[in-house]
């Protein structure tokens, strides 16, 4: 992979990467960083920020900072697993559609059309109503939501390759379809796949928060940012930080992922092609 270091030196890129890194560290080490158990009632009801509880406590007297840190862990874990599933399955299906064409391609594309025609929230609420709100269901849901978009993008990228010389040469050597997909086509779609992953991550974090806010995501007492916003809305007039802090956590992560995705696309030079070195 060719990474262009100049594209990573832009302020937005640096900000994005820094935000993502901070969130990752906080989420990974939250059990050790968090001062209290996120579900234990340790303080008074709605203590203001400062003092023993750095970011105050919620309506039940749980430490808000600890809940925020653990919430990030949950959010990142669910979205990461779901998006990895969507991107992996979507890439393989997209390349297969491009390579085999014909009926497989038609069927996959029409299924994508159906999914893309359904309003997102309707799809999510139907799914949650049908299957409940367990961790596995949420991961599957996120996978299903982003799968069609990934298929389309990867298929388009793969289609530009099926008529290139190296693919034809592999075909004429008698390589198996699997070998052509995995050895010849997939490596040349990876740039797109990585960027797709980063973009879908930011969408997924936002989607998960929205779902929890609407009561379609994780259920209490699990610490979750969307849930915390929704619980805090009732006290907005006298304890605005209950909404403000989770909102800041959500938006910094989403902004970081967005900038990071853009920086990654720039660094991979997705459209720019490089000249060659040396002469004949």
């Amino acid at each position: 992979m060719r990474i262009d270091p100049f594209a990573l030196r832009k302020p937005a890129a640096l900000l994005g990467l820094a935000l993502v890194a901070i969130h990752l560290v906080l989420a990974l080490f939250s059990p050790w960083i968090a001062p209290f158990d996120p579900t234990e009632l340790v303080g008074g009801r709605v203590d203001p920020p400062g003092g023993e509880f750095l970011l105050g406590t919620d309506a039940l007297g749980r430490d808000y900072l600890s809940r925020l840190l653990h919430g990030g862990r949950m959010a990142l874990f669910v979205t990461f697993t779901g998006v990895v599933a969507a991107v992996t399955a979507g890439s393989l299906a997209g390349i297969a559609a491009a390579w085999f064409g014909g009926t497989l391609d038609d069927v996959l594309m029409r299924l994508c059309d159906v999914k893309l025609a359904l309003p997102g929230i309707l799809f999510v609420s139907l799914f949650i109503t049908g299957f409940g709100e367990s961790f596995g269901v949420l991961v599957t849901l996120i996978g299903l939501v982003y799968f069609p978009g990934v298929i389309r993008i990867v298929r388009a990228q793969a289609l530009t390759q099926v008529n290139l010389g190296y693919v034809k040469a592999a075909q004429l050597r008698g390589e198996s379809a699997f070998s052509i997909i995995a050895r010849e086509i997939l490596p040349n779609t990876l740039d797109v796949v990585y960027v797709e992953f980063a973009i879908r991550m930011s969408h997924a974090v936002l989607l998960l928060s929205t779902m929890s806010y609407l009561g379609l995501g994780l259920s209490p007492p699990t610490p979750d940012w969307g849930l915390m916003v929704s619980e805090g809305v009732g006290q907005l007039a006298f304890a605005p930080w209950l909404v403000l802090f989770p909102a800041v956590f959500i938006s910094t992560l989403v902004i970081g992922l967005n900038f990071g995705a853009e920086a990654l696309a720039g660094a991979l030079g997705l459209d720019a092609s490089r000249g060659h070195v040396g002469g004949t």
Partner: protein
Amino acid sequence: MSFLEVKGLGVGYRRPDGRLGPAVIDAAFSLAEGESLGLVGESGSGKSTLARALLGYCRPGGVITSGEILLEGEDIRKLDGAGIRRLRGGRVAFVPQNPLSSLTPHLRVGSQVAEAVRIHRRCGAEEARQATLELFAAVNLPDPAALYDRFPHELSGGQRQRVVISAALAGEPRLVVLDEPTTALDKTTEIQVLELVRSLRDRFKATLVYVSHDLNVVAEMCDRVLVMLQGRVVEQGATTRVYRAPAHDYTRRLIAAVPRIDRAAQAVAPAAGGEPILAVADLAYRYATRRRWPWSRGADDGRPALAGVSFAVAAGETLGLVGESGSGKSTAAAVIAGLIAPDGGNLRFAGKPLPTLASARDPATRRRIQIIFQDPLSSLNPRHRIEAILARPLALFHGLAGAAARKRAGELLGQLQLDPAFLDCYPRQLSGGQQQRVAIARAFAADPDLIICDEITSALDVSVQAQVLELLKSLQRRSGAACLFISHDLGVIAQVAARVVVLRDGTVRETGATAEVFRRPADPYTRTLVDAATRGYASLPDLPGTSAAANGTEP
């Protein structure tokens, strides 16, 4: 005072690290009014950059760093924005290489030219329309009134280039800069456009700067020639003088590298007698258009790509397959290689019927038929190192792996005069000629009996082409493989092929020994091709060791 004088001109391109890489270094020449100058050189030599600088223009990232460009005594580098706008398309006009990308696809061609007329002649719409129709007539476009309302995609390549030339003439330019105006065109269309350019020179008394990599075309069109190498002007002078008595070593090599059909071909001789390695009979293929409904049949687009093509390749011989784009020659290659199944006809390989698709052939047959493609970069997977690219056929066909495969891959590179250190490079790190040599090495790695070469040198510079052809011939001689060599370039065919098949519109027009067919073409179409290919030769020198030309190069 000369009409155009360039002194100490330097142009650089900004690199990613912010420094300027020189593209044209200290170029100087002068041109009298009405003269035509040919700029020749290989890709990357700076000839297009120099030509564009004559309009005070650089491609994005480029800067004119030094020197003067004096047009009738006035330095165009000192012009302000408005002056430059009046200059471009006014006194100096530009004709680019690709006529399709220089016309706006959604506007009618007439209105595009009329716009240029209105701007430069400051006239009304009706007057501009009349002037445009006159211009269309001047560039020999058929039925100007009807053509006026067409869109660019409704025109042929030659017609588009005429439209672009007519737009260039809209401002009644004194200097016309043409950047490879016929490179994207077929040989027979090229003749017509060159005819037109010549008449412009004679009728409009325009001064021409003609950029081309094709020495024949420059010999034919230009009074003077300027040879560029890596941004520097290495030689300039009257065309006949430069071509007959090149002073610089590079010019000499460049001229020697031009493939000519009047030079004796040292083609690989076929093995005597025996059954042909490949025989195709009555091949037919028609590109199906997309079905409208799942149950409907594919519509017919009228013209078949192949209609009853028959020929045979003897073991060890090189058969040339020549024709213009659309003649069906690449389709024939794809059918023989097994990429597409023909609609009719039959294939025999080494005396046995050959299954149509590669997937239906047994591994040994797949090994024995190899193909090399036109575009060297896209025929090598950009994510694989050269070692992996060469190791794959070695593993698949010869069971070589690990150190043994690496050793053999290194040997193959050596046979193509490539450093074995390239094994650890990615294709992008190699030049076009090197990439194509790796593609040849990959084909020979299978140890084939038949190699299909589909326009393998048309993306390469002329001197690189000569080298690649030599290497291919020597490898072929060593291995005894037969070769089906496909090209639009008769000169290249003459260098490699003992026999030739001329294709047009999917049918065979003529078959025979290359020397015979090119010297005395029996078919009128072949004659047109031969005439097109030999036009510029009159100015080229007769090199020692070559036969006197049939078309007569006078001493």
